[in-house]
């Protein structure tokens, strides 16, 4: 089965490694990501003010133009996924807002698109048993901490992704790839999100707590599914190191990069140069690249 694919702004620039590895892995797993022929930024935040119709227009436009090309839309960035899925739910459940939005964007979108995250495709459509079968290089001996962040999970009743306090989908994937999934208390805590613009020192503190919790639980690498989280927990390690002298850096990878290793992709195509903390020494030490 093929999926319409919405990359989003950051996957075209600072998270190219996320985009490329996902596309390459999907082919090996038997599905194709068909990039939308027309897309814009999703707005990067679901408007919480109930009267802010304007902020619903970009995601609605994306949904409407996707519906013209197919029936299932996927995305990788957890923020895009949250914004697009919540907007879709709103259009499905609120007739008045739906009409207003359609009037604005001059479309007739009814909310009849399946919005699905890449992780859900792996779990529900492909099946983790199938994924496991296709593993060429099991990630044996790698202790990986699955970091969910907030946007995949919350609000729980709209995202319907996994358990709201104790999700396991991400760990199940890592185990299927042969890694040892490390459970850690801060795996669903916020990375500080856009506070890296508003109050950078607060975001640094959030990242420090998450990383500290993962390291304490034995994680050698943190796995992420969001370019915003990745910036906060990977790139901000420089700031953390400045503040906490005894802090030991830990690599942060996108889950598709680990998937790529397991699927036997050439490690030179996995874009490790875009990761802030170099994961290559660890992966070499583990004999994975």
């Amino acid at each position: 089965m093929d999926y319409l694919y919405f990359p989003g702004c950051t996957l075209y620039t600072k998270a190219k490694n996320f985009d490329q590895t996902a596309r390459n892995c999907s082919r090996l797993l038997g599905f194709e990501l068909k990039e939308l022929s027309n897309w814009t930024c999703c707005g990067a935040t679901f408007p919480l003010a109930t009267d802010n119709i304007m902020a619903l227009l970009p995601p609605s436009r994306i949904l409407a133009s996707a519906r013209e090309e197919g029936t299932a839309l996927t995305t990788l960035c957890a923020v895009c996924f949250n914004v697009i899925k919540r907007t879709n739910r709103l259009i499905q459940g609120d007739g008045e807002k739906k009409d207003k939005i359609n009037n604005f964007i001059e479309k007739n979108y009814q909310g009849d698109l399946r919005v699905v995250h890449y992780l859900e495709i792996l779990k529900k459509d492909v099946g983790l048993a199938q994924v496991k079968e296709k593993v060429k290089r099991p990630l044996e001996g790698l202790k990986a901490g699955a970091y969910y962040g907030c946007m995949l999970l919350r609000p729980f009743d709209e995202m319907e992704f996994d358990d709201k306090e104790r999700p396991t989908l991400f760990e199940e994937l890592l185990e299927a790839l042969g890694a040892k999934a490390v459970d850690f208390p801060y795996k669903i805590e916020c990375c500080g999100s856009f506070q890296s613009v508003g109050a950078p020192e607060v975001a640094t503190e959030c990242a420090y707590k998450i990383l500290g919790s993962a390291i304490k639980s034995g994680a050698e690498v943190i796995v992420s599914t969001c370019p915003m989280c990745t910036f906060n927990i990977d790139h901000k390690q420089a700031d953390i190191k400045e503040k906490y002298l005894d802090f030991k850096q830990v690599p942060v990878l996108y889950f598709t990069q680990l998937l790529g290793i397991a699927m036997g992709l050439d490690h030179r195509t996995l874009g490790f140069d875009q990761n802030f903390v170099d994961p290559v020494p660890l992966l070499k030490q583990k004999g994975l690249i």
Partner: protein
Amino acid sequence: MKVELTRDKVHNEFTKKVELISGQNLFACYQCGNCTAGCPVSFAMEVGPHEVIRYTLLGLEEEALNVNTFWLCASCLQCTSRCPKGIDIARVMDALRMVVLRKKDRKDHIQISEFPEGFLEKVPQIAFISGFRKFLS
């Protein structure tokens, strides 16, 4: 802080505006503090989200708006998902931001011109777009 309450202060225009923008019933709050306890950024807040909700409910506009609480909210929805009374607290925090940002005189919370050198190149656009939507008039 000494706070004087009068009949016309409680549940005034300000409170109603916040309730309207957020779509939440603030009277549902019974001050359990679960939101503040689970908030990942409450350590940096001058008062907790539950206290801001109380100020707002009592119509204390100045007290509610002159704290950093809602500016620090990262809309992670931890509070929303754990509120035993079903209040979408993140929406209340956003409504407070909107009350300030929508005032007649433009009042941006962050100044783009004051970003340190190299900041625009370093930070991914997703953070800027999101942040600008939350912090700019």
